[in-house]
């Protein structure tokens, strides 16, 4: 049977991809961010996942406002990256696993999560940057992937409580897959930031640190927030926290924190990183 080896949550800021492309990881601006990934690489070497379910939000590469799914999942054997318009190098294709994807879809649908299924799906920086951070080599990404896109770009958004429920159902869907597959669940985005309006540049360290603590001990505390309250506390793009909630909830109620990092700023954003495992 498949099992979840753990959850990684990380920011997915495009500037990270640009820094990787330019080899700036050891520069003073970037070192406090990239330096925190050594512990993640050591953990990945130990748990050796075969597949990653990547919970992220598309930023207008695959989806436009004309038809915008709240939750969309890839069901393909390959996913392509493409030009997003502002200069990030296009990554080579990522391996998918359509059979695993369809199992997840069937299990989630049976639990009343009516996902949009995508047999062709472009994946943007919110998918590619975290995978580059986890597996920084020049070779192709070593795990099979399943993209799961959550709408965080145009209101109304799914509530934090709904995202926790989706994550719990995702955890059950993974656990019921008959193949012997080690699965990483990756939640990307956040933490606090705001790109638009007069409040651009807003960061809320206190709220972020409360969220990182609650991710370990009490994710339901975050599920009691409304989207409006998260926008108020974390900025209009801080709502990407819901991707973290989906990923967190795929684990059981009791988790152990393997590693975490919080660094301000990367570009306009408070960057966060967590590695969590089910507690024994």
């Amino acid at each position: 049977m498949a099992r979840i080896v753990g959850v990684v949550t990380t920011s997915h800021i495009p500037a990270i991809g640009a820094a990787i492309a330019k080899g700036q990881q050891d520069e003073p601006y970037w070192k406090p961010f990239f330096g925190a990934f050594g512990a993640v690489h050591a953990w990945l070497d130990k748990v050796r996942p075969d597949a990653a379910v990547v919970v992220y939000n598309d930023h207008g590469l695959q989806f436009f406002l004309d038809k915008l799914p709240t939750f969309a999942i890839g069901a393909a054997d390959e996913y392509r990256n493409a030009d997003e318009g502002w200069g990030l190098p296009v990554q080579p294709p990522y391996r998918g696993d359509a059979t695993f994807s369809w199992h997840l879809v069937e299990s989630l649908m049976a639990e009343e999560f009516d996902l949009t299924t995508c047999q062709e799906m472009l994946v943007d920086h919110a998918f590619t940057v975290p995978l580059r951070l986890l597996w920084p080599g020049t070779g192709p990404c070593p795990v099979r992937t399943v993209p799961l896109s959550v709408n965080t770009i145009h209101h109304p958004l799914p509530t934090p409580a709904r995202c926790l429920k989706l994550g719990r159902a995702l955890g059950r869907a993974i656990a019921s897959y008959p193949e012997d597959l080690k699965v990483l669940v990756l939640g990307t985005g956040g933490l606090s930031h705001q790109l638009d309006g007069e409040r651009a540049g807003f960061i809320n360290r206190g709220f972020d640190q409360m969220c990182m603590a609650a991710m370990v001990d009490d994710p339901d505390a975050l599920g009691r927030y409304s989207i409006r309250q998260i926008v108020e506390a974390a900025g209009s793009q801080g709502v990407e926290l819901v991707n973290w909630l989906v990923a967190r909830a795929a684990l059981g109620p009791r988790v152990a924190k393997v590693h975490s990092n919080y660094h301000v700023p990367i570009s306009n954003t408070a960057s966060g990183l967590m590695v969590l495992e089910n507690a024994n």
Partner: protein
Amino acid sequence: MLRALEGSTRDGFDPGQTALTLNKMCYSFNRAENRAAFLRDEEAYCCRFVLDDAQRAAIGRRNVLELIAAGGNIYYLAKFAGIFRMSVQDIGAQQTGMPVEAFKAMLAAKGR
């Protein structure tokens, strides 16, 4: 209180205020040939997307606050800004009325 905190994010909570045509034009800038076509003949390119006067003027002025007020969504506007190699920090500086270096310094100060 919330509205004040959101600043000018009209797109924030009222989906009816989103301008499909303006955002559709910005979405088209995912493709290099469309960015080049815009730079070649801005007026002709805008005409293909039926912008209203306020949207057309805001595009001409490359003004992000005006573009948001005219129904632009920041994720698609970022692709428009990309034509001029404007980063989110350039956009942040423009919207807050700061020089870019001051905006970056304001962010760096939050890390200390």
